[in-house]
Structure formats: structure tokens, C-alpha cells
């Protein structure tokens, strides 16, 4: 790779590359992301290559990374026909070569089809889950090979850097980001411009830029997709930030569960250095930035800014009280003022610089401009990565893009913001999604995970699950978080196993408020959110668990009254076989459950093939009064 010596060199290189890259040659863009690789995209590529060779077609294969539609993997797009194929098998791949590449027609069997009554859809822009999306940050995810810097340059990459270095002063770059009101995509939504200015104005010449790629929220994979599929967009964002605030050094902190992201970022940095886009005297100017990747080691709390800094320095990943903030001397990496943003925030920056703050502000809502990437998962038909403008309603996300609930069951709640967020019930489905509205209803944007829950999900169990996650991830430094979450978890476990007592809900609320107020860092301050929001919106479920010993979703074990419905039962005897405690008794012509022996272990409920074993609410009335009726 030849080093670019000036800004004009880059411009010329791009012109040459884009002519070649955007030509009408047949190309197969195959997703090789973590999920699609697990579904077998390597075999699909093999099949495509061998079939194209046999047919004498010159086919270029672009190995893109996560395109977002992980559930329908392996994904495949054929250019220049712009046809989208899903769940491609090696056999189908051969047919795709025959139909599409040799004849230019779509191959029906691998197209997206809602169901047998609907026509298959060939073009990606016509897909129902694609229509409402606005892909800006993810735009190039399904077009380029992240291991090849030329692809990124060909689709307009590093154009923002080129513009900044040739036309804008550092202050102008900062003003543009400030005016765009770009809010931190990591969850809290703090304006990036303010943060940058603060770092820039703090004393000292040595400054650091750090990107936070420690995406630990269960159910979130936005940052993974960006780092895997488009690492150069993160680098470019960091370059612009470093240029604006005058930093010369930087780190990208990535969690170790994402080996592919680490590999791609390292490779991207190497290629950018070779081309002269990173390192000393970038593009012949006197701007210098050294970047390096630091791998995490499996601690959720290291996503917190001060803990992340400690981890980069090689210490235990303990958060510490602020001030000093990261942007102040003594607060950041190795004691130098540091600007820390989420990788998605950095990926937004090149767009703002290239197209301007006014363009960015025209998307989304007044206070939360731009788009946000969400990971839609849980009990929803299409689980995928989406990018939508801020201000879209939850209903549009879940029902139009997500396609509704699996098995057309009833929607119950959506959990946003991972273990620090809250559960939002049905009544807020039409609420526009932005940073402020989510905080208002007790949840938060978080990193952008959205877990959809249906009527078969027990809200008490979900809250217990999140609490057990934060409890085990609590670093143990401050007592409110260490002891408070432990005590809350004990109460939640008691409720879920049917040992709940009168006053437990109030105790949970009180403890929750204490933990929120007194904890040192964001982990503790938000840990009670799932419990508090579920109490707020689903209090009757808690009361049922405590007073009626009944779980309406039938998830919690040891609750409810197990009975066999005689009119449904066809006497197969499977329940009797399943019961380890001999609680299912047999008479001459029926089976019934002896409540004295029943341990409510769930075995008969699972064993029954026709749902004749029912779990019901035990009556709270004394037997004597029931008999009198």
C-alpha cells in the first residue's frame, strides 16, 4: 500500500476507486458476521465460487460483516440487480448463480416471503422491515468488506476527514458537532459537543480520545455490528474528534467476547497507518494521531467511564467518584484529559462533518436529532438490527419493523436499555422514542437493546433476572450497590419461589430508591430500574405472586394450584409417568393430582401433550367458606 502524501492524493485515490467499485460488475455481497458465520455463510461462498467458475461467470465476492438481519442469515445481496436473498443454503446458492447471475432473474425460493399467501419480495428496499428504517450509520454495513480500506474509501470514506483537514479549523469542527446536538449513543445521552469542548478547554497539551466498545448489555449488539462491519467509520470519527480537541493519542476499548471486532479494528488501524491516514503527519499535514486497541477481560462494569480508564491502565476495573471527570487533568487515561464516547457516537461524526449540522438536525426530534441503532430481540418475529430516526413510535418499531409478536400472542412489555433500563407496558406503545421520553417513563435509552416480551413472560421473573445480572456484575466497591442489590435479589428470589411476604413490595421500593441514590457509579444507580418499573406498571403481578402464590405467565416454579381438567384429559398417563413424587393418582377412569404430595415441580405440566394439566390461582378463601357456597 502506498502512503498518501497529501489531501489531493486521497481525493485522486477515491475517484479512481469509486469508478471501479461502483461499476456494474456482478458482485455477491455475503454477510460473514458472527451470526451469519454461525449459520454457515462460509459454505455458501464456496458454493457460489465453484458454481460461478463452472459457469464461466466472473463473480466478485464481497465479504461484508453484520448486515443486521441476523435471524435470516446467511444473508446475500447480488449486485447490480440489487436482489436480497435470505437463509441461503449452499444448494440454493448454486441456483442463485444460475438464475440471477447467468439470467438476471430472481431465484424465488431464497427470497424473503412473509408467508405462503404473499408474493416473495426481491428488492431490499421493498422489504417491510426495511421500509421504515433510515440507515445512515449502518449504510455501508452491507456494501463493503471491512478488511479492505479501499472499499471504505470508494464509498466516500474519509471524505469528512479530508474536508476537515482542508477547509475547517479544529474549532469549526467542534462547533459543527455542538450545533448538531449529537447526543452520546452509549445511553445517557450527554451532548458530545459539550464533552469535547470541556476536554479541549482543560489545561495541558496532552489529550487522549477513547472509544467505548465495551458493549456488555445482554441483548445489545449494535456496537458489535459497527466495529465488525465498518471499523473505519469509528476511526474516522475518532480522527475528527482528535483534530477538534487537539489529541494525539487514543485507545479503542473492546470487550473480549467480540474477537472478530478486535481483529477487524486492529486490521483497520494497520491499513490506515500504512496509507498515512493514521499515525504521524496525517495526509502530509501536521496533524498526528496514534490509535491502539485495548481488549477488555470480561467485566461488565468496565463500560463505566472511570472503570474503563482503570482497566486501560491495567488496574482492577473499579469506578471512582467524580470529580475529577475524565475530561479534567488527573481524571482520564494515565492522568491526562480524555474524551470518551461510544463507538456509535464516533460513527455519527463523519456524517455530521460531511453533510453539515443542519442536515443532521433535520432528522429525528428537536432534542434528540439523528438516528439510533437498536437491537430488536426477544419474542418478536423479526429479530434484527435496525436504524431508525429518533421520534419513531415503539409500535412502529415492534409491529411494522419487527413484524409483531411470535405466534401472534399478546404484547405485554418492551424492555429498553438492558439491565439498567426499564420495562415499558402496552399503554406507552405510541410514545415517540427519544432520550427524554424514555427517561420520563422510568426507563432509558441505554445502548439500544429492545427486548420484546409477550404474555408468556413473567415480569417478576424478568426483573429478577436483570437484578441477578447486575448483582453478579457489581464490582463490590460501594456498599449500597454490593449489599443493596444482593438484598433486593434475595427478596425477588423469595417472591418467585412462592415465599413472598406481605410488605415485600414496599421493601423493594425502599431499597431500590436507596441503591439508586447512594451508589457510586452508573451501574448501581440504575440497577434497581427493572424492579422499580415492573412494580410501577405490573404491580398486580407482584401481588399475585405474593398473596395468591400464582404466576400468570406460568414461568415461576412452585406457584399455583396444579389440576387435571377431566373434560380435556384423554388419559394417556404421561403425567403420572413424569411425576417423581407420586402425586398424580390413577383411578379406574381418571387421573388427578394429590395436592398433599404435589411439589409444583412443573413436570406434569410439561409432559401433558394437550394442555389438560392447568396451573390455576388457588382460592384465597378458607375451605369451610368455599364448601358452604
Amino acid at each position, binding site marked *: 500500500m502506498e502512503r498518501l502524501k497529501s489531501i489531493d492524493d486521497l481525493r485522486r485515490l477515491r475517484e479512481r476507486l469509486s469508478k471501479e467499485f461502483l461499476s456494474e460488475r456482478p458482485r455477491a455481497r455475503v454477510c460473514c458476521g*458472527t*451470526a451469519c*458465520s*454461525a*449459520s454457515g455463510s462460509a459454505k455458501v461462498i464456496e458454493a457460489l465460487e465453484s458454481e460461478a467458475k463452472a459457469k464461466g461467470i466472473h463473480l466478485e465476492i464481497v465479504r461484508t460483516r453484520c448486515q443486521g*438481519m*441476523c*435471524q435470516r*442469515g446467511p444473508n446475500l445481496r447480488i449486485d447490480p440487480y440489487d436482489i436480497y436473498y435470505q437463509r441461503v443454503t449452499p444448494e440454493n446458492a448454486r441456483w442463485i448463480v444460475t438464475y440471477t447471475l447467468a439470467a438476471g432473474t430472481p431465484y424465488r425460493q431464497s427470497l424473503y416471503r412473509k408467508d405462503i399467501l404473499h408474493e416473495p419480495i426481491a428488492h431490499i428496499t421493498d422489504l417491510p422491515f426495511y421500509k421504515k428504517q433510515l440507515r445512515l450509520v449502518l449504510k455501508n454495513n452491507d456494501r463493503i468488506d471491512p478488511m479492505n480500506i479501499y472499499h471504505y474509501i470508494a464509498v466516500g470514506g474519509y471524505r469528512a476527514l479530508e474536508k476537515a483537514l482542508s477547509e475547517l479549523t479544529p474549532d469549526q469542527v467542534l462547533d459543527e458537532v455542538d450545533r448538531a446536538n449529537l447526543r452520546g449513543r452509549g445511553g445517557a445521552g450527554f451532548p458530545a459537543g459539550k464533552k469535547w469542548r470541556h476536554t479541549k478547554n482543560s489545561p495541558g497539551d*496532552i489529550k487522549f480520545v477513547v472509544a467505548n466498545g465495551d*458493549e*456488555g448489555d*445482554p*441483548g*445489545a*449488539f449494535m456496537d*458489535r455490528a459497527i466495529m465488525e462491519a465498518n471499523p473505519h467509520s469509528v476511526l474516522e470519527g475518532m480522527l475528527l474528534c482528535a483534530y477538534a480537541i487537539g489529541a*494525539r*493519542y487514543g485507545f479503542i476499548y473492546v470487550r*473480549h*467476547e*467480540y*474477537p472478530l471486532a478486535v481483529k477487524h479494528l486492529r486490521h483497520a488501524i494497520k491499513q490506515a497507518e500504512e496509507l498515512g491516514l493514521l*499515525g*504521524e503527519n496525517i495526509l502530509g499535514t501536521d496533524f*498526528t494521531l*496514534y490509535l*491502539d486497541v*485495548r*481488549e*477488555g*477481560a470480561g*467485566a*461488565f462494569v468496565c463500560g463505566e467511564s472511570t472503570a474503563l480508564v482503570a*482497566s*486501560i*491502565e*491495567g*488496574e*482492577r*476495573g*473499579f469506578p471512582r467518584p467524580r470529580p475529577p471527570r475524565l475530561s479534567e487533568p488527573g481524571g482520564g487515561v*494515565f492522568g*491526562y484529559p480524555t474524551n470518551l464516547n461510544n463507538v456509535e457516537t464516533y460513527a455519527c461524526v463523519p456524517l455530521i462533518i460531511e453533510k453539515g449540522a443542519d442536515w443532521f438536525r433535520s432528522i429525528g426530534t428537536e432534542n434528540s436529532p439523528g438516528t439510533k441503532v437498536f*437491537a430488536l*430481540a*426477544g*419474542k418478536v418475529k423479526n*429479530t*434484527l438490527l435496525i436504524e431508525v430516526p429518533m421520534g419513531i413510535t415503539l409500535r412502529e418499531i415492534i409491529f411494522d419493523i419487527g413484524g409483531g409478536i411470535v405466534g401472534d400472542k399478546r404484547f405485554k412489555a418492551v*424492555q429498553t436499555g*438492558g439491565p439498567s433500563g426499564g420495562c415499558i407496558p402496552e399503554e406507552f406503545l405510541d410514545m415517540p422514542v427519544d432520550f427524554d421520553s424514555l427517561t420520563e417513563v422510568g426507563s432509558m435509552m441505554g445502548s439500544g*437493546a429492545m*427486548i420484546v*416480551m409477550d404474555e408468556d*413472560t413473567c415480569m417478576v421473573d*424478568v426483573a429478577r*433476572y*436483570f437484578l441477578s445480572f447486575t448483582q453478579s456484575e457489581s*464490582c463490590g466497591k460501594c456498599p449500597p450497590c454490593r449489599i443493596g442489590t444482593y438484598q433486593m435479589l434475595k427478596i425477588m428470589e423469595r417472591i418467585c419461589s412462592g415465599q413472598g411476604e406481605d410488605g415485600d413490595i414496599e421493601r423493594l421500593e425502599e431499597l431500590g430508591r436507596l441503591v439508586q441514590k447512594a451508589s457510586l457509579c452508573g451501574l448501581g444507580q440504575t440497577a434497581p430500574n427493572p424492579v422499580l418499573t415492573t412494580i410501577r406498571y405490573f404491580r398486580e403481578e407482584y401481588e399475585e405472586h405474593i398473596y395468591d402464590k400464582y404466576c400468570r405467565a406460568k414461568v415461576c416454579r412452585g406457584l399455583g394450584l396444579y389440576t387435571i381438567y377431566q373434560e380435556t384429559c384423554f388419559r394417556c398417563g404421561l403425567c403420572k409417568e413424569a411425576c417423581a413424587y407420586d402425586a398424580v393418582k390413577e383411578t379406574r377412569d381418571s387421573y388427578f393430582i394429590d395436592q398433599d404430595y404435589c411439589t409444583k415441580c412443573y413436570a406434569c405440566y410439561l409432559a401433558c401433550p394437550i394442555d389438560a394439566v392447568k396451573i390455576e390461582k388457588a382460592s384465597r378463601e378458607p375451605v369451610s367458606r368455599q364448601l358452604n357456597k
Partner: protein
Amino acid sequence: MKIEDLNDEFVDASYKGASAILTPEQKRRGLLIHALQAIQEEYNYLPEDALRRLSEKLHIPLVDIYSTASFYKQFYFKPRGRNVVCVCVGTACHVRGAPKVLERLKETFQINEGETSPDLSVTLETVGCVGCCSLAPVVTVNNEIIGNVGPVKLEEIVKTISQRG
């Protein structure tokens, strides 16, 4: 990276331009987690004598190294199994039945999560999220991701592991 390679030049080189502004202590300390990861990659866990050698090489007291290593979940002080089965218990996997998968694996291998079977053939672990929520529930076997795990796939996983031994 080997422990023996950790001399001053190597430490300097791994900071690129930033090595000029940092003290030698800061530089060595900052490499600690990376070094521990390299040791773990080689031995599959952190053996005591390797940590002692590392302590001498980096001029960091052993107690400090232990303090850092014990904080992070990724590091192990006991040998791990030849096969590492990791069940994702993230939210998406949880609502799609990860607890059942975990229960089944515990029963089959007769070990709890975080434990290694006595013959060192298999280690059972859980992870917060591997970022493949669309394929939930997910199990990884030696870092290879297997999605949409149901009874049939679970049977296959158990079979391949007992064959590999």
C-alpha cells in the same frame, strides 16, 4: 507474545507514539491485562509460576497481579477443560429458554456452571451476551457459535464433545 519477550523495547513499541509521554511504570502496568491474556491463551489458565515470572518481568508485585487478574471474569486460576461449553444467558436467550439449555447441560455433564469435569474434558460456563441475539438461545463450544439450540442440537453438542473427549 511470550513472557520472556516483555523487555523495555517491546513495552515501548506497544504504545506507538504515546510511549514518549508515559512513565515506565505506567507502560508496564498498562500491558498487564494484555500479558495475562497471552498467558491464558498459552496455558488455558494462569499458572502460578507464569505469574511469578510475569511479576519479575514487569516489576509489579505478585499481589497486585493477583488483584487485577481476580477482578476479571475471563481469567482462571485453575486448569480448564479441553472443551469449553458456554451457554449464553443474555436477555434474549433467557426469554427464549436458555435456563432449560443450561439445566440440561448441567445434568448431562454432572457439573455446575463455572466448573470443570474431573477428567478435564469439559468446562461449563455462562456468558452475559455474545451478541447473536437473533439466533437465541445460543451456546458456544470452544468459541464456535451454535444458534437456535433446541433438544436435537443439544444432543449433537453433547455427542461431539463426548466423542472428542
